[in-house]
């Protein structure tokens, strides 16, 4: 019991250990995806696994909060290399690029308006029929 306490206390304090723990969950999720043949990414299965442990109170959210916050806060760094793919598409710096921009702008506005209308309409309907 005392060693368990010591381990969890160290885990509560150390961001590096928590980052390691998140990596372990990712590894477990990936192994699970391969072993079970479920067509889902390892990250999603790792997320489900971690969420199940949190909800069943086998794991306290405090013991991973720093590590998970680090991943979420620095997520932008992880896709910077992928964005450089744009250098392989010189045609984007012309008419095609403008067309893509138009699609993104109009589609994003449509997505935002339809989402907010659906949420507002649905919550009004539910409060009227509650």
């Amino acid at each position, binding site marked *: 019991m005392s060693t368990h306490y010591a381990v969890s206390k160290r885990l509560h304090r150390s961001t590096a250990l928590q980052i390691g723990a*998140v990596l372990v*969950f*990712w590894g477990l999720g990936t192994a699970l995806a391969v072993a079970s043949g479920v067509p*889902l*990414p*390892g*990250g*999603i299965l*790792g*997320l*489900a696994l*971690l*969420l199940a442990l*949190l*909800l069943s109170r086998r794991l306290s*959210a405090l013991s*991973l*909060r720093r590590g*998970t916050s680090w*991943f*979420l806060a620095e*997520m*932008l*760094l*992880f*896709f*910077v*290399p*992928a*964005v*450089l*793919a*744009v*250098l*392989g598409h010189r045609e984007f710096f012309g008419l095609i690029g403008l*067309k*893509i*921009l*138009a*699609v*993104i*702008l*109009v*589609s*994003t*506005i*449509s*997505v*935002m*308006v*339809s*989402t*907010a*209308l*659906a*949420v*507002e309409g*649905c*919550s009004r309907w*539910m409060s009227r029929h509650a």
Partner: protein
Amino acid sequence: MPDLSLATLDPMALTGANVLLWSVLTIGSYAIAKQIYRRWTHWWLMPLAVAPVLVAAAVLALHVSYRDYMRWTHWLVLLLGPATVAFAVPIYEQRVLIRRHWPVLLVGMIAGSLTAIVTSWGLASLLGLDEALRLSLVPRSISTPFAMEVSGDIGGVPDLTAVFVVITGITGAALGDMILARLPFASALARGALFGMGAHGAGTARAHQIGSAEGAIAGLVMVLVGILNVLMAPVVAMILA
């Protein structure tokens, strides 16, 4: 005297050196971009925009092929996997909100996802963009780790989707403000869902500035819609094929 020119270096060692150099350069550019934004908070100076521009400048200036660069720093992109796992904690912490509002949020996420698929696909076809571009544009509203996953599943190019996700993030916060100025939605639920569904992390950051309820809802919608889209991807792939 030993020959120390690069040409005679062991190719493995050369790759190792490049991995180190370009990883440090990428992390450094990201750190600088964050500092710039801390000093000058303009939407067009978002780290989302500035970090890739700094790295691209280095790649072009040093005459390195972007393909080599992407190979050397691919381990950073792989970290989007554990970043997906990390979403478990905010979901757990918002469980009360989920229990109370899940039907409404689910309706909003389905409406938003269907609109994203139909308008991206339809507009891109209308403007004559090719199929790889059309498919890569579809998942651009959702958070990067999920968006790249969905893009690969439905036959898009994940790297192109990453570019489109970035453009959506940079413009999304401003578009959301513009919409709210014309259509003032009454509930925090609708305002939050608008930003989380339309512009992932960048939208969520903007929603947090509007209010804490809006921010919490936006963050929740961003995470849940990512998972929902990954689960829906095989069906969407069948319909679009």
